[in-house]
């Protein structure tokens, strides 16, 4: 009984914040020239996002340029909401370099989450 009480006393404070999205502060987003867009011609699966949470960018979604970072060009879509999720949830924009997603930009946190491997985009010509 004493062991159970001790467990109950200790666990609630820490047991459920085991995983969180690890991000690093990004450079300021350079707005650059607006107007660039692309449309995905096929689903793009991202299976190595933080906490192994799969993400699929859907075919037919249109992505609009919002700015540049040293890591690449940042896009967002009105057709699809994209988030990174562990214990907490963050809206995320893909960072694209040479037609590959290399990282995510967290617009509220002004931060970066790098992907372990770039993911190729299939873009409509």
């Amino acid at each position, binding site marked *: 009984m004493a062991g159970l009480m001790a467990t109950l006393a200790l666990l609630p404070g820490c047991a459920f914040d085991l995983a969180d999205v690890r991000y690093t502060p990004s450079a300021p987003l350079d707005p650059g020239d607006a107007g660039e867009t692309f449309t995905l011609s096929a689903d793009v699966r991202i299976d190595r996002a933080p906490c192994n949470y799969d993400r699929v960018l859907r075919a037919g979604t249109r992505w609009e340029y919002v700015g540049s970072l040293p890591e690449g060009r940042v896009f967002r879509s009105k057709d699809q909401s994209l988030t990174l999720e562990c214990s907490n*949830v963050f*809206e995320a924009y893909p960072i694209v370099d040479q037609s590959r997603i290399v990282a995510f930009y967290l617009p509220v946190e002004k931060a970066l989450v790098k992907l372990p491997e770039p993911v190729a985009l299939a873009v409509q010509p």
Partner: protein
Amino acid sequence: MNRILRSVPLVLAVLILGACASGAKFSDTSPSLTPASGETGRIFFYRPSSLGAAIKPDVRLNDEVVGEAVAQGYFFVDRPPGEYKVTTSTEVERSLSLVLEKNQTRYVRLAVTMGFLVGHVTPTLVDAETALKELPKTKAVATK
């Protein structure tokens, strides 16, 4: 003793049902999906599940309480464009960060997961397509 045990399911049912949303059904009232003013954006909050109905944490938007996460309930608020953090607290705090633009509508689903002592309510951002399939089953909850 048996009489007490027999009444447990009834008491539980009353507790659970009494904790669910009881306002007008979304599908009956069809609230506008767009903000009242073109200078603001609209955020819908909804909790489609009845799981853990007795747990109704406050929903905070940038530290301001805007409503309660009531089972099978929804509410919405209009806010100026900007960066927002949605938080809910039970035995732990869960958060969602999102950007709201002018004349944009965002949908925040309040998902219930099992916790150690009580359920957790986690805000997640969903597309209109998903939200508009789930919202018709929910009922209005007053904003704060």
